[in-house]
């Protein structure tokens, strides 16, 4: 009955694996598998190519390349069914295959995560619906780590905040419903932000619909109609509550790897010099797919890039990833020394058993050595960048803006950086940061910067700037969006959601929250962190502070001189309702009660209290590595209360990833 939270990740992993392999098994004989690009990485997280081979997969193709081999009879497609463009591409490709292939094809489609009406329609319109076997591959949450579940929707951020397309919210609700079906309902759902509100509505609705769906007060349904005994609560944070954090340079080791080389699904593509020559065999790109493609991607060959795996299977990396980069060097030294001394044991080994012990541990040493070499090289690569003048200046500007000094003082530096052709994402991050924190730029300044950026990086970026403005990331300061000081409200925040709709902030007021929630910590010990602010060397991400308002009330109280209206019995948002009105969007709490309270009581008295409880934290619109690090830090402090955190998100984001998506890539070149 008691399903441990840690095993949730395992459960999802094995389920995804089993589901996919079953689907593949359903296609008899050898087959080619065509995967859409956005799914190659995620698929890699739970199944590798050799396993696919065992299940009859002959060759792998990427949908977008359009080079599917038509000589194979069986072809299976693994495509995201929620994205009409991908569905369209699939339909067209199948149509082509059916038309001009000399072979009679047997085509199957596995829609991820479900078969949609639109996909049916598109296939029908293309006239191929009757010729394909359609199945579903219900993959929602994918575990990146044992405590990090991600929907891996790369576009979620853009879809939510630019296009207003809430598909990711819907998928998140599906994913969370599945968790609730396994563990019972979240007794409480707390949330902040408009999209959080939307997701909660879907979850509440979902619970009602579930009753209809199975209508079963019997069998598997029984668990789902009761609040869970193992889940504590669900906290939903909408990314737009705290955009500013996104634009700061992440200063943990993992964060900096993301900033410098980028991480996709626990993998980073680095220069092969980092891994060293010896590793060529061991770090064969796990994605055997690329090598078996008919057209091997030429880029990897030219730049000699290697993929390295960055997850907790590497024990060294798990020690390093959440540390501030400042201490990574010394940590590496320490490990190097330890390894050395471990290795020296062989000289002092006297008896054969001692020697035997040593030999047995050899592979571990070698692995550790390898990992140490990779991370030392990688850290050096990063140091090269962090030592550069531009990096320090950018950081300086960021920290000054975050600390609330008048941002106009930084404008000269930004102008200079533009003139020096520093990559546009970096510039945009600085300006967006300023815009977010000080409620927009002065119209005159903004126009000046816009012109400078357009002249420096090309006029096509007009579209980039328009997009950023639409997302309210980079906008002029006007009376309309001037920062409203919080009105100490008559806020009544009961368990009822409707009561929470009183004047939610339309914009996050960082200047006020900085003081009240102590976002800037002057003394942050990077060696032995005492506050989450260590992840940005002095700035505590607002998003996590908000979560701390629920989980660590007394700690937040200790940071602030004036007392919050807190009692020891305060739960949920209590005590912070007024403060949080200064952050964008509604703040709300929902209690999910059993239809029959007695059942819960009976169950609780049977189980006895005092098991571990899991708090799910859902970041809509994405989470950064630094925020994950900060949450882990918070989580460690909650261990005393027998609570653990499970981090869920629509995907991993970072300032660069966002800008990468926003930026207009076409130009005015002739051959466009």
């Amino acid at each position, binding site marked *: 009955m008691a399903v441990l939270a840690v095993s949730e990740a395992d459960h999802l992993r094995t389920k995804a694996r089993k589901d996919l392999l079953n689907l593949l098994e359903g296609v008899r004989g050898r087959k080619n598998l065509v995967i859409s690009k956005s799914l190659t990485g995620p698929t890699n997280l739970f199944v590798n190519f050799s396993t696919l081979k065992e299940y009859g997969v002959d060759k792998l193709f990427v949908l977008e390349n359009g080079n599917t081999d038509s000589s194979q009879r069986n072809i299976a497609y693994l495509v995201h069914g929620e994205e009409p463009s991908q569905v369209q591409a699939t339909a067209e490709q199948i149509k082509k295959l059916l038309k001009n292939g000399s072979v009679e094809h047997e085509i199957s489609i596995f829609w991820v995560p479900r078969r949609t009406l639109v996909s049916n329609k598109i296939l029908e319109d293309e006239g191929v619906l*009757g010729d394909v076997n359609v199945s579903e591959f219900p993959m929602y949450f994918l575990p990146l780590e044992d405590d990090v579940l991600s929907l891996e929707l790369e576009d979620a951020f853009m879809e939510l905040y630019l296009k207003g397309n809430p598909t990711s919210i819907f998928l998140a609700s599906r994913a969370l419903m599945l968790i609730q079906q396994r563990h019972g309902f979240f007794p409480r759902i707390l949330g902040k932000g408009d999209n959080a509100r939307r997701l909660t509505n879907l979850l509440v609705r979902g619970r009602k619909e579930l009753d*209809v769906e199975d209508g079963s007060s019997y069998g598997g349904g029984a668990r789902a109609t009761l609040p869970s005994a193992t889940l504590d609560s669900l906290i939903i944070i909408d990314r737009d509550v705290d955009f500013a954090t996104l634009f700061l340079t992440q200063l943990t080791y993992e964060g900096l790897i993301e900033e410098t080389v980028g991480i996709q699904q626990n993998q980073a593509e680095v220069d092969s010099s980092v891994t060293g020559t010896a590793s060529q065999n061991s770090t064969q790109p796990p994605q055997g797919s690329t090598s078996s493609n008919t057209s091997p991607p030429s880029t990897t060959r030219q730049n000699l890039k290697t993929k390295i795996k960055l997850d907790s299977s590497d024990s060294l990396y798990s020690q390093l990833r959440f540390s501030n980069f400042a201490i990574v060097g010394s940590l590496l030294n320490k490990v190097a020394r330890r390894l050395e001394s471990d290795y020296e044991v062989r000289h002092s080994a006297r008896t054969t058993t001692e020697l035997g012990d040593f030999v047995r541990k050899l592979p571990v040493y070698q692995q550790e050595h390898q990992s140490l070499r990779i991370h030392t090289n990688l850290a050096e690569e990063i140091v090269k960048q962090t030592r550069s003048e531009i990096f320090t200046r950018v950081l300086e500007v960021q920290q000054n803006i975050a600390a609330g000094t008048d941002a106009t003082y930084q404008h000269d530096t930004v102008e*200079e950086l533009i003139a020096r052709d520093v990559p546009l994402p970096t510039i945009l991050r600085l300006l967006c940061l300023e815009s977010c924190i000080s409620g927009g730029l002065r*119209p005159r300044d903004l126009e000046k910067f816009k012109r400078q950026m357009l*002249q420096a990086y090309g006029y096509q970026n007009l579209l980039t700037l328009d997009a950023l403005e639409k997302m309210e990331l980079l906008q002029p300061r006007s009376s309309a969006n001037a920062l409203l000081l919080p009105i100490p409200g008559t806020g009544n925040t009961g368990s009822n959601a409707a009561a929470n709709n009183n004047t939610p902030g339309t914009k996050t007021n960082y200047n006020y929250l900085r003081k009240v929630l102590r976002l800037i910590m002057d003394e942050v010990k990077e060696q032995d962190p005492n506050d989450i602010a260590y992840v940005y060397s002095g700035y505590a991400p607002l998003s996590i502070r908000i979560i701390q308002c629920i989980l660590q009330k007394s700690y937040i109280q200790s940071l602030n001189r004036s007392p919050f209206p807190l009692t020891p019995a305060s739960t949920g948002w209590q005590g912070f309702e007024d403060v949080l009105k200064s952050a964008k969007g509604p703040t709300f709490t929902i209690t999910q009660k059993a239809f029959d309270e007695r059942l819960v009581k009976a169950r609780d008295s049977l189980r006895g209290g005092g098991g571990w409880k899991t708090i799910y934290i859902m970041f809509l619109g994405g989470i950064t590595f630094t925020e994950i690090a900060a949450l882990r830090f918070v989580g460690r402090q909650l261990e005393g209360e027998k609570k653990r955190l499970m981090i869920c998100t629509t995907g991993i984001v970072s300032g660069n990833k966002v800008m990468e998506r926003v930026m207009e890539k*076409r130009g005015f070149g*002739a*051959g*466009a």
Partner: protein
Amino acid sequence: MNSSNPRAGWEKVGDQFYRKIQLYESVFDPDLELGDYLVAGAPHGGAVALFRDEGKITRYRGASVARSSIDLYSSAGKLISRLNWDKGSIRGLGWSEDEQLIVVTEDGNVRCYYGLHGDFHPFSLGHGAEVSGVVECRFWSSGFVALLSNNSLVSVSSYDEPRPKVLAMPPAGELHAWSLIPPAYTLSRTVEVLLAMDRTIYVVDATECEDRGLSDGPFKHVRVSPNGRFAALFTEDGKVWVVSSDFQDKLSDYDSKAKTLPKHVEWCGNDSVILAWEDEIHMVGPKGVAVKYYYDGQVHVVPDVDGVRILTNEVCEFLHKVPDETEEVFKLGSTSPASVLLDSIEQLEKKSPKADENIQRIKPYLPEAVDTCIRAAGHEFNAHLQKELLKAASFGKSVLDLYSSDEFVEMCERLRVLNAIRDYRIGLPMSYEQYSRLSPERLISRLLNRHEYLLAIKISEYLHLPANKIYVHWACQKVKIASSDDDAISNLIVSRLKSKSGISFSSISQAAYDEGRGHLATSLLNSEPRAGKQVPLLLNMEEDEIALDKAIESGDTDLVFFVLLQLKKKLPLASFFRTINNRPMASALVESSARAQDTELLKDMYYQDDRPVDGADLLFEEAMRQTHTRTKMDKLKLASRLLTDSRDANAQLHTKIFNETAQLLKMQEAFDKDIANTNGNFAGLSVNETMYRLIKSGYGKRAAKVQSEFKVTEKTFWWIRLRALVAARLWGELEEVAKNRKSPIGWEPFYNETLGAGNTRLASTFIPKCTNLTVPERVEMWVKCGMIVKAGEEALRAKDLTTLHDLSSKATGQQAVEIERMITQLKPRR
């Protein structure tokens, strides 16, 4: 079922017992000439379909009877429904596991009747079936194979999404008989067909047709056992062969000595074969031993997983192998513990002390004896015997210290259900084995097909199963047949079902809509809690706006998209926009999908919404896609024209940018013409990049022109010039620049960049110009250029002794001497 002799109807076949149980009497109207009918029975004791065989002459009975129909009967002979049939000649009549009746006509049309009452899904076989014509069909639990007159085979493996597939082409020739192995029992997991042709058997699957190389044919009947492991072959000379289904082992043979071919050859369970002539049945058990049964009239044999139903006008019988447990208990002279246990019950009733003696005797085996009795009770059709056996089990149980009664309780439950449905009024003569395979849920749906709601609800409650489907089914039926007015029905249904959880009002509503009762459908739909489920129906009902709202409410973007697609197709553009206008999510979705596929729609949309800037941006994007400068400019012009009336700052900025873009393109075109450049075209570069490249290529003047044209700030221009000159290593030019007295960006960048490019000499010239820096900074700068002496001088001027000491450690040779000199110079004189 009146006989209480447990061994009534037992026959010994070889070393096994078979028994024939009479299930029902006077099944069919004596006037019904069973011989003239095609008979197909649904698996697991389900309904029986009768259709008049058109090949047979029939007695004329007046015009009313002449209308042809497919009649569905229960096994007890109760007419369930009559499906009118006027679609031509039937070539296949069969059932699926879920009691769907499949009717295949000669021209390849298929109807899949569900629910036993005339509702059906039609589909067509295709693959030339309409031309060549269907000859015959064979069915399995979830599909069938049709044989066409040209010997090609078409298989359908699912009725939910029928997808007829043609199998590999068998050789031409006369086909004597054929059969299939269901997908569940083949290696390939797809259906395989056995064809008896010439003297051999061909095995056909999706890709190949293989000759099994037999030589004892021709075979007139081929049948595969229910578990797919054996095949029965009936040869021309009246012999039956049982072989393994891979044709490797011959297991038994039997000579029927009959001159005529049997009408049917069927399997009875997995170990005996039934040969049926008009009024005679031979049952061939293992090792070729047979038993014969004779009937007065026509017999039909309906095979099932564990036995066969035998239907005549008078009786319906079940013939099967006596289960091991039953045999153990009841076999004449059995001394098994179970049998002794049963006996002790009799003794107990007689109050004889032998009861206890018996028990003591079998004490060590008592648990098994109890188990056996319980299971034997399960296999029994006779309630009296069931009770006896259960009583025995109960008695045995009471003697045992530790015994889990679960199985006993469960068996009692099951038997109650079985006895209830075996009643002649229900007519589902299911064996225990069949019931276990069918599952209670599917049993309930069979009851629903027969409209036995009360019994269904009772059983559901008894077995703790959800009853919601029953209510929904009832309500759908109510909607279909009730004649009272819409509101009354709606009220009745809602009031009855309101308190029940899990009611799908959308299905009820759909049923109402299908009956053409739109108003009723709408009012029922209001009670549906799931927004998403309402949408398709609302779309059908042309309630577009409500459908859209419900879709949005569900949060399911797929659904919203779907509705939008439909609406866009249906509505004129203006009203389409009006519909989505006040629904932000809908318009957002339209916008983002149009962006990918239909920019014209997007333009219209922006125009309607009065969003000129967005519209202009679209044209701007189009300009980018053009390949010629001229067309690019045209698009840009169009874009700025769109904004002429707009006054707000943003629009003005856009206009300005459009104009600048055009201007830049024009200049770049000129540059591309004038300046031969190996690095590619100017077109497509940004303003800064253009200046950078111009300077790098030595066209400083033109760069300056670009600067003034685009009002690039001095600072920016200086930086660009610096970077370009350093990159091109135009040191001379750089020195030229250095002659300026003042630099808007200071001189430090000059130092840094030149130093970075490795020109220490030139870099050093900038150090004295950096007057705003501190002394230690400048010292550092000198040192970086390798000019320790200069650094020393700097320190000397500032009278900084410690720095000098530091420097002396770095200095070598002549330098060291110099520094030493300076140190002494600075040292306070003694």
